[in-house]
């Protein structure tokens, strides 16, 4: 009789430990998703901050390339004012494209290409583009793990009880699916 009782108590305790661990795992994954999303914004902001510096530097060497410079500024401002993910993604593509042509300018201006400030900014922007792509990748990876956990047995029981809802992936539209890396 006591043996049965002990077995039951042990089972209940084990179940309780599992439930706590599983719940905490879900909470930590959910927070990681929030963090990953914030990380994307941090990197986007960093890019917005770098662009005016780059434009100023280029102006000193190729001030008559108004069109290219204006395109970059316009794309940047559109990106800052964008609302909603779709508009945002479109603006980001425009920025990447405009930056590409700005970097291409350096081929025609050897002085600009040799400028250390320019090459530093180019490195920073290339690095930031990479970070944006990686931040999105990490966000999607985390959402994948979170959604899988919520949907699979037995953690789905717990997820339902505590209202853990599925998250959406960051979807790149067909245009932005290409490499975000600046080529030069």
């Amino acid at each position, binding site marked *: 009789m006591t043996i049965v009782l002990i077995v039951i108590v042990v089972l209940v305790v084990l179940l309780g430990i599992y439930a706590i661990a599983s719940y905490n795992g879900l909470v930590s994954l959910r927070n990681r998703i929030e963090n990953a999303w914030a990380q994307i914004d941090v*990197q986007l902001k960093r890019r917005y901050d770098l662009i005016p510096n780059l434009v100023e530097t280029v102006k000193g060497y190729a001030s008559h390339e108004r069109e290219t410079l204006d395109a970059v500024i316009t794309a940047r401002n559109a990106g800052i004012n964008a609302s909603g993910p779709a508009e945002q993604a479109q603006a980001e593509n425009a920025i990447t494209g405009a930056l590409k042509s700005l970097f291409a300018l350096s081929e025609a201006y050897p002085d600009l290409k040799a400028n250390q400030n320019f090459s530093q900014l180019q490195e920073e922007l290339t690095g930031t583009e*990479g*970070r944006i792509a990686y*931040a999105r990748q990490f966000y999607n990876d985390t959402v994948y793990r979170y959604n899988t956990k919520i949907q699979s047995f037995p953690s789905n029981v717990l997820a339902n009880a505590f209202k853990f809802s599925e998250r959406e992936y960051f979807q790149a539209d067909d245009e932005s699916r290409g490499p975000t890396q600046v080529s030069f």
Partner: protein
Amino acid sequence: MYDQVTANKRRSWLLVGGFGLLVGLVIAIVALLLGGGWIGVVVAVALAAATSVVAYWRSDAVALRMSRAVPAPAEEYARYHNIVEGLCIASGLPKPRLYVIDDPAPNAFATGRNPRTAAVAVTSGLLDTMNRIELEGVLAHELSHIKNYDILVSTLAVTMVGVVGLLADLGVRLRWWGLGRTRHHDFDVHHGGNSGPLAVFSVLGFGLLALSPLAATIMQRAVNRRRETLADLSGVEMTRYPPGLISALEKLRDDSTVVHATSRATAHLWIEQPSAQTEPEGKLSRWNRMFDTHPPMEERIALLREL
């Protein structure tokens, strides 16, 4: 690819488990040979544990100093820092400390106990010869070592090899001096007295003990070869771009310069085996390959091409 990663992880744990068994076996044999000289065993284990703890805490600093690595300032090595930061975002790792080694031979390694204390070191030759995509491939490989806790496993492997060696040495010496026979005279094989299976076991144990450091070294190497392949794969999982690492590995393969500031002790840490790898042919090649710390470059490249 994910199957490959899980299979590799499982095999690594099996090998680490094998290590534990070997250490246990050696301790048991030493205890038996000493004929109940438990104090000796306790002293040996305590000694081994103490050295392991010290090695565990200081291993990264030692590895970095042995390779003459110096901290890489962010202003001077912007590309290096930017790539690592990007990859850390992709993998959710904290940014490791970054070091550079002034050496024309392209190579890199990661060290530390866990992601928070990790460090990555690359040679100036690597930064010069690799383009951005290739450097990203190599650094993703190194960060995978950190993420998979390979840096911890290789540290543990090294210290466990040390423990086995120390214990075996102690056991052999004590047996030689005859310390272990004082209490149990029926163990004595010295006078040719027939003491039955115990004597046979004693001789067998002695042989096993003498061979155990060799076995430990071979196992350590086997663990590491698996880990290199695994890091290649999970590195690509980070960058999502196999051609980057493939082209980097091809450059490493075609480069014949060897890192100067390296030693046998740190050989298993680097992305490319720093010593000359054994030739694929010849009578002893099979035997020699057991001591290689890395799988052949061709094998690694071929595996990545399959992705």
